[in-house]
């Protein structure tokens, strides 16, 4: 098998948070042994609720944060440490798009200046070549040439996100990490940006990590999807397989929670909130909310193992280790 563009091997990232002035620092495992691979021309969708570690995973892949355990490999080579010259030159090959385009742009600089800034930083091309590149980039993301002179506040939300995307594409990256790139946008604009990402990928053959909480959007743009819960990947596979036949009870609940015209019954409603990563439940982290949990689930943590057809799931019940229980505190609502 060819070397993936980027690969994470069992990466772990811990934070420490202190409770109260005199409290002992508490270890929070934001990412707890995540492994994933993205090939060229492939989009991996990463789904999960807030606080599950999706954004931290994205930052780990870019080397913006060091992994406490495990390794991130870019084209089979370990990622150089952040702020080293090697890392900086590698960064032109991997770029990031954030959720809030206004926050990601400098309000005091015109859009065009910001789009060519990565070229200035990496000293790519002559000034004339950079201007030519700017015109190409604007066209690629569907912005009119005169938009280059506009300031971020003079652009609409969708146009700002296009400008951010143009900037990310300026250095011709091979990997694009998109962290909730459409969540702050209106529905009709979301569709524009999703179409744009698909087009750009088809043209440039980028590898994309698409982080989102929106399963519909993830299905639309991804070739594979990974579902995260409390710092771990609990299910992975092709989007249609995962969405139409989810194996993990958490994925089942996520899928059934998608609002759908005409659907009001038969929904699995999870009780409770996503747990605090600082206070991780024993065994399978999902067991307090799981409708099929058994006492075994509260003791032993399941591993992510293959389930055939390119799928993997981390659940004792789905793996057949134990028979489905009736949950330790959840209910099923018709």
């Amino acid at each position: 098998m060819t070397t993936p563009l980027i690969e994470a091997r069992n990466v772990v990232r811990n934070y420490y948070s202190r409770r109260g002035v005199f409290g002992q620092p508490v270890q929070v495992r934001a990412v707890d042994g995540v492994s994933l691979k993205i090939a060229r021309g492939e989009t991996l969708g990463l789904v999960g609720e807030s606080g599950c570690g999706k954004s931290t995973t994205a930052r780990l892949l870019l080397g913006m944060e060091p992994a406490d355990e495990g390794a991130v490999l870019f084209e089979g080579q370990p990622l150089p440490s952040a702020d080293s010259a090697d890392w900086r030159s590698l960064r032109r090959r991997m770029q990031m798009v954030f959720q809030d385009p206004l926050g990601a742009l400098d309000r005091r600089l015109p859009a065009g200046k910001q789009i060519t800034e990565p070229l200035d930083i990496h000293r790519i091309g002559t000034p004339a070549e950079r201007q030519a590149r700017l015109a190409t980039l604007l066209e690629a993301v569907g912005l009119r040439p005169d938009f280059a002179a506009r300031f971020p506040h003079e652009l609409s939300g969708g146009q700002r996100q296009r400008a951010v995307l143009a900037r990310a594409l300026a250095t011709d990256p091979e990997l694009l990490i998109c962290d909730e790139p459409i969540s702050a946008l209106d529905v009709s604009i979301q569709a524009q940006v999703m179409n744009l990402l698909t087009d750009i990928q088809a043209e440039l053959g980028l590898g994309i990590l698409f982080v989102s909480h929106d399963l519909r959007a993830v299905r639309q743009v991804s070739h594979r999807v990974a579902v995260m819960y409390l710092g771990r990947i609990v299910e992975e596979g092709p989007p249609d397989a995962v969405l139409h036949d989810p194996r993990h009870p958490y994925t089942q609940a996520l899928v059934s929670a998608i609002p759908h015209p005409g659907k009001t019954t038969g929904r699995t409603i999870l009780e409770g909130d996503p747990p605090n990563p600082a206070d991780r439940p024993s065994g399978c982290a999902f067991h307090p909310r799981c409708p099929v949990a058994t006492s075994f689930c509260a003791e032993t943590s399941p591993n992510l193992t293959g389930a055939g057809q390119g799928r993997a799931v981390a659940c004792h019940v789905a793996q057949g280790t134990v028979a489905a229980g009736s949950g330790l505190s959840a209910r099923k609502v018709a």
Partner: protein
Amino acid sequence: MAFVSLRDMSVSFGATPALRGVSLSLGRGDALGLVGESGCGKSVTWLAALGLLPGTAQVTGEVLIDGSDALTMPVCQLEKIRGGRIAMIFQDPASSLNPVHRIGRQIVEALTLHRGIAGAEARAEAKRLLDQVGIPDAARRLDGYPHELSGGQNQRVMIAMALAGQPEMLVADEPTTALDVTIQAQILDLLRALRRDTGMALVLISHDLGVVAETCDRIAVMYAGRIVEEAPSETLFRNPQHPYTRGLMGALPPISGERQRLVSIRGSVPDPNDMPAGCAFAPRCADRFAACDTSDPANTPVGHGHRAACLGVREWQGALRADGVRQTDGVRRTVGAFA
């Protein structure tokens, strides 16, 4: 008679129009969804109707609540309606609750204000309300602070406070937008259960067609300060008439079937200070006529309880067609690629 009816309500901030003639009516126990993109005026509609906009806003038209006009009634009378007969909850529960007061005290305050009960009786009622909205361990939570609760639980507290006045109608403004998907499902389920148990009317404001479709009987789609289409939920999804409604549906990625390029609406929402002369949607519309650039379409009935503001629709001839489905073929001239 309708419980609340808005008649040709317009709102402007200085010279900037925010609402351009909104008419809506809501019977007792009805559930209406109000859908549109940011800035279309869906929140302003209800803030204006309840007199919650700042003094700089000029509001015209009529807001009839049980037959009396809320825009002209004395403030003391309006205050009995606000929070009492009509309650409202907002997107971000954490910023709507007071962070330095205990949850119990905030609910008791609402109870004292609207129902005139205090002391142990109010506290018992507050606990009952927390139980009703599904907060576990309600008695202990009364003494907690908002920061000790999660976003979903704070939204439940907001709903409990809204229920304190035993309202006849609840206006929920993007109540689940700040919440995770599984928590959103919990809150929508709670709203449905409350409607079933108390018979209150519900207005659900959302940018998400899916959210309103499964919670409301009727949906109104807003665009640039106006309602462009209104229909029973099922009709709207089966037979959308306005190109904007169709655009919103096309922009929603499907959950099954073959993956296709999304049909996105070109361009973006018009600047309220620089509205197009004709139909506000015309510059983005793929189905426009020449006339769309000059004349602003009026609301036209197109079926049973179904109206749309588009020159491309043909007026429905009452009971001429029993199925209520209109033929569009031949009526519409598609102007495909426009610059």
